[in-house]
């Protein structure tokens, strides 16, 4: 279970999260929806340990273990995966080299044997095929010159190879056309399992037609202001976020 209690986060001296509390039990998919500027991306970055996202209060743990005192790479090795809204381009580092380095770094941190090159290539080929990606693209520097859709597929390919236990998807639908969205959602759904938890951050309800959440939370003004079943997402789509904005609250 991911357990976040009363979490407060400041970025560049500006309080963004103001006492956020949320539990995501194992095997469940929870959606976080909210207006722009509510702190949705900040939640993902803070959980992943991005520098300059200062924790000013509260706690967050994964499977009972405190996350906030770990280095970002240690959190990743514990199973935390953040799919970036804007995946970063890394010139000079081929995608395959990068992912293999990540897979083996995580294995090493967990005291597991490294994956051999043939073993890794086989897994990478299968993952690329499932996502309808040209395998040769993985020989190019990571995300450099990739389209928005290709970058998102690359994020899902990494999930498939890293097999994280706690996934945070930050606006994974942005920049995707409907066909790409289906491919990406299929990739994510393939990872649903009783041991895995997912936090799906999205501004629009559209993604939730493809990745069906167990619970939906509304994040506004740095806090969870409403929670409900999947029907809450439809309600938000119809009525907007106005009633949750701080002025209206």
């Amino acid at each position, binding site marked *: 279970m991911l357990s976040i209690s009363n979490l407060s986060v400041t970025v560049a001296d500006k309080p963004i999260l103001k006492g956020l509390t949320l539990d995501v039990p194992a095997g469940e998919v929870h959606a976080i929806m909210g207006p722009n500027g509510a702190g949705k991306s900040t939640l993902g970055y803070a959980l992943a340990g991005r520098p300059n996202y200062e924790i000013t209060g509260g706690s967050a743990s994964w499977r009972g273990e405190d996350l906030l005192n770990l280095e*970002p790479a240690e959190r990743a090795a514990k199973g935390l995966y953040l799919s970036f809204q804007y995946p970063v381009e890394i010139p000079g*580092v081929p995608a395959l080299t990068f992912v293999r380095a*990540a897979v083996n770094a995580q294995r090493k941190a967990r005291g597991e044997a490294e994956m051999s090159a043939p073993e890794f290539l086989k897994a990478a080929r299968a993952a690329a095929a499932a996502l309808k990606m040209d395998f040769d693209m993985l020989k190019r520097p990571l995300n450099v010159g990739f389209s928005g859709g290709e970058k998102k597929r690359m994020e899902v390919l990494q999930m498939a190879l890293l097999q994280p236990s706690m996934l945070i998807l930050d606006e994974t639908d942005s920049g995707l056309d409907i066909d790409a969205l289906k491919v990406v959602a299929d990739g994510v759904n393939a990872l649903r399992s009783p041991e895995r938890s997912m936090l799906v951050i999205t501004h629009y309800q559209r993604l939730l037609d493809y990745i069906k959440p167990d619970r939906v939370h509304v994040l506004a003004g740095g806090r969870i202001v409403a929670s409900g079943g999947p029907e809450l997402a439809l309600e938000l789509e119809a009525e907007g976020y106005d009633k949750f904005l701080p002025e209206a609250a």
Partner: protein
Amino acid sequence: MIALLDLQDASTFPSRRDEDWKYTDVRRWLREVPPPSPSAAVQGGGPFFGLGGEALTFVNGTAVGADHSTAFGDQIVRLRFVSDANDTGHSAVATIGVRPGGHLTLLESHEGHGSGYVCHNRLIIQVPAGARVERIVLVDEPEDALSVTQAEVTLGQGGAYSQTILTTGAKLQRLETRLKHPGEGAAVRIDAAYLLAGKRHADLTTEVDHVGGEGQTDQLTKGVVRDEARGVFQGRIIVREGADGTDARMGHHALITSDRGEVDAKPELEIYADDVSCAHGNTIGALDESALFYMEQRGIPTDEARALLTQAFLMQVVDRIDHDGARERCRAWLDDHLDPFSPRGRRWAAEPLG
């Protein structure tokens, strides 16, 4: 212009008052003629041993066998400047030629042992009409050595000269190349990468003088500096009156990964001809923080992420080497110096980003 550096004559030691040496002040560290280095035995075959070819070896300035070489046909020469001395000085002069139409791969290594030595190497390279030379230089010297290597290259019509220098610096180190470019379809590539830690200093100085038209020069220097190290890049491209149709581009890009690291860059294009295409770019920055975080989020520890990004940055220089075997050797050299788990690479990873 100062007189040619001569280790036997202290009046020739340049200081920062000489414009060309303002970032590399030899006189600050060396005021008197150093005592001569003793003779020493050469060990091993050097970093390019596996690539074959004939060896031209200098040990503490003394040639082991010939001090010059002329290549014909398609040939590899391993030019080794070996220093094995403590607090003494030595000089060497090597002359490298190629027959017209010949193709030489010059694999040069500066192999420093001992400590506190001073060395000066002069290299005269003649590339006649239609000949091709690719010079690849690996420099490994102790942190307290002072060394100056000056290469003078003359190039004939339709000739090609390419050069790649990889260095980790020394207490004070200058690797200088001066090239007379005849134009007339001749092509020059002149590259370098520096990787400096501790208090090391490396100065990459080049001058390419286009005296004839229709010549090409392509230059790329990249460097990474950490701790209190200092990188110097002085690149000058001159396009003389009448050297129309010259195509010259120069790039220098450096990363500084500490608060006290320093890079001094002086790119100069002096153009006296009208119809030319010349460009230069110079950037100095830090490692991309967002790329670092992205890599860490995927489980790659900070040190390893930093090494991967640094390697990718510098590898662009190595990728431009034509000779397959030498390129692989240089890749391995960079890997070895950057790998956070290798003893030499560890010092790269040890310090946090400033």
